[in-house]
């Protein structure tokens, strides 16, 4: 029996509102299948099941606001006996009309799993606890970043950051949504600049081989299969991470944790409403044509507001490009808990010296923003040189 919890879909997410269940009790569900739709500060997100089984109980109800980590449903492994969790108290903020009569599950068939008391589970200083009370933050919903996962004052402040006055939340208008997205970005970026000692490196890369190769490829491809230069850049970053894996992962507590998989988060502008950076899973393993399809798909769903939970929670590094806005050099802010961000500027024609001769070449400025707690400039510089090298052999990407 497994508890299906409200996932954390961003470093500053504290809760999500269940929009609807895509399954009902008794339904079979496969790992990775969409099981629910949840509204967060940034977007409406499709939540995937983390395991295969049968839905035993749906605890949260559409409209409920559920803290991160709270039980939303119970999934039973197929073939295992049914056993409803007894007295599961939904950790949800109920809609006003249902607040007086919270839903309880049916009579238990198995004894409850032992649960630690909140005081035993939470590591939080008295000062942080007091701040949480002042700001109206439930400490049990906060992920601690202090020693042994202890919740710090900064964690409480970060958790409180995106919360807007209740009147604004209730309005639910487009303007409110835009404000909430802005607040979420503000909280994440403020945390990043407060906690992460950034260092920045940049290099100019000759893209003449890559652009020539791309033009030749697109001449051969039907319009539906054409590639954008951005997909070459994303793939080059993903492959370079194999050689400098320290940049691919997270800062957790007081240590760096490399990710065994490479899931590049691609920054997607939502035009008037902000920015999201969903993951393209296993970015390094897809051929360019396949990667392009995945890139198109994730941009389309980001703008339609139908991203999936794993796309929000899994990026191991972020790639952003502002070239289309005419920017030549991007000094990005790392999205915590990631430890690096790669920026690309506009592809521009510049004088370039080749074999002692001045020639015009399309070039791009690639930048690395990296967490100095995890890497030094030497490794960061190596990473950018690998990206450069890979882009000189576009056919091998």
């Amino acid at each position, binding site marked *: 029996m497994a508890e299906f919890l409200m996932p954390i879909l961003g470093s500053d997410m504290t809760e999500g509102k269940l929009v609807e269940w895509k399954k009902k009790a008794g339904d079979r569900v496969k790992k990775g299948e969409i099981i629910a739709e949840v509204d967060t500060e940034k977007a409406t997100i499709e939540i995937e099941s983390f395991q295969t089984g049968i839905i035993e109980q749906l605890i949260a109800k559409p409209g409920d606001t559920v803290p991160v980590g709270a039980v939303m449903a119970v999934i039973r492994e197929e073939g295992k006996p049914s056993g409803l969790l007894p007295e599961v108290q939904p950790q949800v903020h109920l809609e006003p009309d249902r607040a007086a009569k919270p839903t309880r599950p049916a009579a238990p068939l198995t004894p409850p799993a032992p649960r630690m008391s909140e005081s035993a589970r939470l590591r939080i200083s008295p000062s942080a606890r007091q701040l949480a009370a002042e700001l109206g933050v439930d400490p049990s919903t906060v992920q601690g970043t202090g020693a042994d996962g202890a919740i710090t004052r900064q964690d409480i402040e970060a958790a409180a950051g995106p919360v807007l006055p209740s009147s604004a939340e209730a309005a639910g208008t487009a303007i409110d949504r835009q404000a909430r997205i802005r607040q979420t970005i503000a909280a994440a970026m403020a945390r990043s600049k407060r906690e992460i000692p950034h260092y920045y490196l940049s290099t100019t890369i000759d893209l003449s081989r890559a652009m020539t190769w791309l033009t030749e490829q*697109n*001449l051969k491809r039907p*319009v539906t299969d*054409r590639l*954008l230069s*951005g997909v070459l850049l994303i793939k080059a970053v993903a492959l370079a991470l194999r050689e400098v894996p320290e940049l691919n992962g997270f800062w957790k507590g007081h240590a760096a944790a490399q990710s065994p998989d490479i899931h590049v988060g691609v920054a997607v502008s939502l*035009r008037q409403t902000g920015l999201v950076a969903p993951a393209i899973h296993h970015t390094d393993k897809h051929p360019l044509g396949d990667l392009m399809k995945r890139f198109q798909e994730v941009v*389309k769903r980001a703008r339609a507001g139908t991203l999936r939970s794993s796309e929000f929670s899994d990026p191991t590094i972020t790639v952003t490009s502002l070239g289309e806005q005419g920017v030549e050099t991007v000094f990005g802010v790392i999205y915590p808990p990631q430890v690096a961000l790669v920026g690309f500027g506009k592809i521009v024609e510049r004088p370039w010296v080749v074999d002692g001769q001045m020639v015009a070449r399309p070039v791009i400025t690639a930048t690395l923003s990296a967490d100095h707690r995890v890497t030094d400039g030497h490794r960061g510089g190596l990473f950018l040189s690998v990206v450069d090298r890979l882009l000189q052999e576009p056919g091998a990407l």
Partner: protein
Amino acid sequence: MTRSRPTSEIKQTVLTLLGEIAPEADLTTIRPDRSFRDQLDIDSMDFLNFIVAVHNEFHVEVPESDYAQLVSIDGCVGYLERKLSHSQG
């Protein structure tokens, strides 16, 4: 299916396709003689999707080298009129 279409119909179809790419855009304020990429904040991914939509709707091949001719409404309409009349003839 390729067939002759009046200019007004081509223009309306182009606007409809653009509206699907950028649903938040106000197409009534767009200047037809200027780049819609700038006016509607259309990026290269949107533009490629627009070209694919044009291909699917009008059944015309648009090579990359012709993209610059399709960045405005007027440019699109003129380009499609030429392509459609060629395919008819």
